[in-house]
């Protein structure tokens, strides 16, 4: 019989002690997982991932809905949780085997393979309490993958153990699923979801938000997370920002950073990315104005200041709508950090209006030796001198 998991309208309600209200951890979740699928579940904390996994593992029951599972489920929730501290690594492997309903003889056949896979060296004969977290995780993973699980559930498994072991574990799991088994992974690491899974389900507020190819779903998820991060940062430093009109009828209606490549407004820019600041200035029709650009880092360091009249003629306020002032920063020479940019509109040398906004710069390739304020092009030429 083919292995499968079919969920129809799953709901899980928890009643909270402190209030009379009921918390809905899952809110109508339906999906079908067939043999050979490797499914990754993603979502922010509290989205319902763990609750769903507990239902599949049979640890708790759904409040509403139906879940039918064809196959034997093996779950690794917290790596190393099932290990017995006072027994040695080898003894734990035997105990785990018996729990899985396997004879001592059957375990004895695979034990050397498990021991080799876990790479614990002489520690394999020492009590588990002497292990580091990473070592426990390696042992737990090794015992599980060598018992031929039909449906394997792993929660955050790959975040423990070193990078090399994680790579080995990933290979092992691919091998398992290629033998026609079902794998379910919950992880915050989008990279491991994309590497390991053939399908990804994004849970949000206890519902399936998106279900599809891992690359697409994780991209959509990361976009939303980044947008929320930007929003949070903005909210946090809102108080440092201004929007003032000091002379009647004058106002800077907007001030935004635009990425030239994506042609849209951004709050996060990359070092070296071509970008333009754009301000909408509303003023008295026909009067000319100057503009000052003031850029400071969040810790107060004034990085840059320049004046429109320093390199171009003054602008004139239009009759109908606001005037757009574009400030082309070129390939952004700023290193990573958070910056506050302010635009002052000057009329006859006095500030008529001003506005500031905040943006964050990310440098994907930071310097090894330090954190310079600028990432600015320079060249180095060497010519031999006569001896």
């Amino acid at each position, binding site marked *: 019989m083919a292995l499968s998991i079919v969920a129809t309208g799953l709901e899980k309600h928890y009643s909270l002690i402190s209030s009379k209200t009921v918390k809905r951890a899952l809110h109508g979740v339906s999906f079908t997982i067939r043999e050979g699928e490797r499914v990754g579940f993603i979502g922010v904390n509290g989205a319902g991932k763990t609750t769903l996994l507990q239902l599949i593992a049979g640890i708790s029951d759904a409040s509403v809905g139906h879940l039918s599972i064809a196959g034997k489920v093996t779950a690794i929730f917290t790596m190393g949780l099932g290990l017995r501290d006072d027994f040695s690594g080898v003894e734990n492997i035997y105990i785990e085997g018996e729990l899985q309903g396997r004879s001592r003889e059957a375990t004895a056949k695979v034990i050397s393979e498990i021991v080799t896979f876990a790479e614990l060296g002489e520690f394999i004969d020492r009590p588990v309490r002497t292990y580091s977290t990473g070592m426990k995780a390696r042992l737990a993973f090794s015992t599980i993958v060598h018992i031929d699980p039909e449906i394997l559930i792993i929660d955050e498994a790959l975040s423990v153990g070193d990078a090399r072991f994680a790579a080995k574990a990933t290979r092992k799991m691919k091998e398992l699923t290629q033998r026609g088994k079902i794998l379910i992974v919950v992880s915050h690491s989008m990279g491991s979801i994309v590497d390991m899974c053939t399908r990804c389900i994004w849970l949000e507020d206890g519902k399936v938000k998106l279900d599809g190819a891992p690359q697409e779903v994780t991209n959509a998820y990361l976009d939303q997370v980044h947008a929320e991060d930007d929003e949070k940062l903005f909210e946090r430093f809102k108080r440092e920002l201004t929007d003032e009109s000091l002379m009647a009828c004058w106002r800077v209606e907007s001030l935004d950073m635009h990425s030239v490549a994506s042609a849209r407004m951004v709050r996060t820019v990359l070092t070296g990315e071509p970008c333009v600041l754009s301000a909408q200035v509303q003023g008295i029709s026909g009067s000319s104005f100057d503009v000052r650009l003031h850029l400071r880092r969040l810790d107060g360091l004034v*990085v840059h200041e320049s004046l429109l009249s320093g390199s171009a003629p003054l602008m004139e306020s239009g009759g109908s*709508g606001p005037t757009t002032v574009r400030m*082309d920063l070129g390939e952004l*020479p700023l290193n990573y950090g958070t910056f506050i940019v302010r635009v002052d509109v000057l009329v006859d040398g006095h500030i008529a209006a001003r506005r500031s906004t905040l943006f964050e710069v990310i440098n994907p390739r930071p310097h090894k030796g330090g954190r310079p304020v*600028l990432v600015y092009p320079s060249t180095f030429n*060497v010519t*031999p001198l006569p001896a």
Partner: protein
Amino acid sequence: MGWRALLTGLPPRERFTAVDDISVAVMPGEVVGVLGRNGAGKSTLLRLIAGIYAADKGAIALSGDVAGLFELGGFGNGQLTGRAFVLRYLQFFGVMKSSWNEIVADVHDFSELATYFDEKIHTYSAGMGARLYFAAATAIAHEIYLIDEVLSVGDEHFQAKSWARMRERLACGAAGLLVTHDWSAVIKLCRTSRVLQAGRVVLDGRSDTVVAQYLDLPKADAARACLMVDEGQIMCGVSGETLHIGFEVQVKHCMRVEAAVSIEALQLGVGWESIILTEFSSVADQPGRYWAEFTVERLPLAPGDYLLSLFLATPPDPGSGVRDVLDARGWTYGNGVTLRVGGEPRVGLAPFAVAWSQGGE
């Protein structure tokens, strides 16, 4: 004879002198740095000045309200809420009641405690407690700030905010003492510094000189390759124009030699920033004399004096990734070079080019 000896008849335990014969005077508007490794007596010194410990010998005179920014998060009464703590703080320092609301709102906002502000302090994490304390202690103007590694509270954004706030307070004429093992903090905040070692002042002077001596970086022997640049040399450039820095490199062995350049702005007590830092690039792989020229188009530096550092090193070791420094010029080695940038004075550290234009509708 101490209490122990009186009550038990046992001989007093061996005594340990944590701070030994230290004199320091701090004037308003000045922060003096005290550098030292763990166990040098820094914290004891701070606590003596704050009146937490009594000195066995010597005298301390303070004029003004003291804000002790140390032992952050170590609150006397965990049963107080964050808000109640702030009110008590204001009452203690005799702040006028009419301004309480505003200050409490400011602390609430700055500490980023959100709803935790009205929870009891014993439910806070250490970081939350530290944020609350820092926000409260800097919300009102004190005359004296005693600072112990304070600016390492919170995440990167919070630290940036704390620096800005600390600078603001000190700019208003407060006096301060900063004890730390972080030499970069001393460079940024203090004109003069001391170095403590085993309870005694071993170095005293301008912060940059003191730091260079404190770091005591091993000078490269320049045996395999060397920079033909004199200590204290001044190189010149003009803001907004092309900068050429040329220097001779002599390579004595058959080996790969790479070079890097760093330009830093240092105003003692105001700030210290690395502005331009290049990656290492190849100079030579054969013995000989070479002319190396470092070029920056449209130099994005405001007029003023900068610290120029030059490094010659081997390529990184493939195993460890560590470079062998062959020769170096830099203020941290005590043999720095000055870059003097001329031009019209400007606001802002980095006047890079901005192209202005009027956009369409």
